[in-house]
């Protein structure tokens, strides 16, 4: 009967699944993937302690920063398919705000870096409402412009030390119990930020909001027609993708003991993050992690080898070109096309 069908349809239209927050959490806890993230984070965090190896800590610290940058950038490039070339501006600006609050105002380090993250996200949201009206290449160019404008501004901004930047004295580490324990503290926090980045990528991918973002990536006009509030969603994902990199920036520069404009707003690092994503596989959660670790290893090897140290840039460029031309899905895309069972375990 047509009338009963239409009633069914009407019922189905108004039906809303009553899922409590606990159900929602349980749905994820049953999945293997979030646990993999937790285990991975714990292993990275504890490895240098167990092995009692400071140089391992330094290289893992850099890797954690790379993973944080790559996986948050992946929210834009892989999910929403908006090419953000100036993503390093989050890292640099968050670093400046965090370090400035922690040194000049003697605010607690954790609060300072969180404040950096909140400020950067708020700025990104406001800014995103403006520049995210641009599509494709226009947006990519605008992000470069934003990074360069802020770079030039900070270079001239005297309270932040202008072109010379901010140097931390040894006293800055006193609240953390001296420089040694301060470094370990920063390391644990950075690894935590890395783990949170991965969980964030997972949470967004499995949420309704994430579905909207992925739809924008597939076809923005179609998504808008189907009721995805595209301008708001784009601004939100832009703001979210800025938060954890900004926090990581604060921790990283606090740990380094110096922050200066050329190091904080380096476009090359921005592009390196894109290389990591491409290497691992854009749009996946595991891909940027694999890419970041591989790139960190490769970079270290090229920098320290006798024959290749001059040609580091050349080889990295050639690698990128080969990926772009022949393996656009990255390592993970390539693997998953051959081994479909990997999809459940490596999302």
């Amino acid at each position: 009967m047509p009338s009963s069908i239409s009633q069914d349809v009407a019922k189905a239209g108004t039906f809303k699944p009553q899922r409590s927050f606990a159900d929602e959490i349980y749905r994820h806890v049953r999945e293997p993937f979030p646990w993999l993230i937790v285990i991975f984070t714990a292993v990275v965090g504890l490895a240098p302690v167990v092995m009692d190896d400071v140089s391992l800590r330094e290289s893992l610290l850099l890797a954690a920063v790379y993973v944080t940058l790559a996986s948050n950038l992946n929210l834009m490039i892989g999910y929403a398919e908006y090419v953000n070339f100036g993503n390093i501006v989050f890292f640099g600006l968050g670093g400046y705000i965090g370090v400035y609050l922690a040194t000049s105002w003697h605010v607690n380090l954790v609060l300072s870096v969180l404040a950096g993250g909140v400020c950067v996200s708020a700025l990104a949201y406001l800014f995103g409402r403006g520049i995210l009206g641009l599509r494709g290449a226009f947006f990519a160019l605008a992000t470069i412009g934003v990074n360069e404008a802020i770079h030039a501004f900070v270079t001239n901004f005297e309270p932040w030390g202008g072109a010379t930047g901010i140097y931390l004295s040894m006293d800055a580490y006193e609240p953390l119990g001296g420089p040694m324990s301060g470094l370990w503290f920063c390391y644990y926090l950075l690894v935590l930020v890395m783990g949170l980045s991965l969980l964030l990528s997972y949470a967004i991918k499995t949420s309704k909001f994430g579905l909207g973002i992925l739809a924008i990536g597939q076809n923005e006009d179609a998504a808008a027609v189907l009721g995805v509030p595209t301008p708001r969603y784009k601004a939100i994902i832009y703001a979210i993708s800025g938060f954890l990199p900004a926090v990581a920036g604060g921790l990283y520069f606090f740990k380094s003991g110096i922050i200066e404009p050329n190091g904080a707003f380096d476009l090359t690092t921005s592009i390196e993050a894109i290389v990591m994503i491409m290497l691992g596989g854009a749009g996946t959660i595991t891909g940027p992690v694999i890419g970041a670790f591989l790139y960190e290893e490769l970079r270290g090897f090229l920098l320290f080898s006798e024959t290749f140290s001059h040609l580091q840039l050349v080889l990295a460029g050639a690698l990128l070109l080969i990926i772009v031309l022949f393996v656009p899905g990255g390592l993970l895309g390539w693997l998953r096309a051959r081994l479909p069972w990997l999809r459940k375990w490596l999302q």
Partner: protein
Amino acid sequence: MIGILASVVDGVLVGAVYGLAAMGLTLIWGVMNVINLSHGAIIVLGMFVVYFLTGATGVSAYVGIPVVVVVGFVAGIIIYWMSVNRVIGRPILMSLLATFSLNMIIIGLATAAWTTSPYNVPVSLPGITVQNYTFTGTHIMAAIIAGAIAGILYLFLHYTRPGKAIRAVASNRDAAELNGIPTRQVLAMAFGLGVALACVSGALIATLFPFTVLSGGAYQLKSFVVTVLGGLGNPAGALLGGIALGMVEGLATPFTPVSWTPIIEFGLFVLTLIAFPRGIFAFTKA
């Protein structure tokens, strides 16, 4: 007052060279929707070609310009077949990364060969003095050459068969192919032409300022600003955009410290992108 005027005029002269660089970028964008991120590296290539040419043969830098055009054109064709050909029509990220990877390769090789120490091309030309302000001869000459090349490009695009083919492919590639135009070769030629323009602008910049292997980045960013001011894909707009940028720089110099110029430039850039995504000088139909 005359000081400000002189500064603006000098800015316009240098701006014409920026415009030439941006024409290369915008031509490639207009024809194949590819933003050439190896643009800066190409500009540096032009600088070094003219440096070694004048060093080896002792001829004036201006005599070397045709050689630079040929080198640039050939380099452009090679780059096209190496990296651009496969990414045309694919997502914008792919073409950005493909050209950027070439940028890394070229800069890496150039750094290994020539280090990052500064070079300069010695050119002596008499300047023109008005009251107590002197307009440098090299600036005037560079602007004249830039203008002439822009004129030649215009004539080429509008009155020759290959030029018309380029415009046909830019306007509708499928229709051009159906009409018997070998579009792939035309794209390669357009890319070569764009790269040649960037090379020549590099050669001209080398006669104005000292340069290093890494100078390209700054001029690439300036080219983006100019391109956006003039409207992406619009060569005539690019020249006007370049002159406008030069004027802004010239106008800002007497009032603000030099280090503030980039803030003004990039502020203008982002505002233009948001307010006039088609460019301020986009009077041709888009």
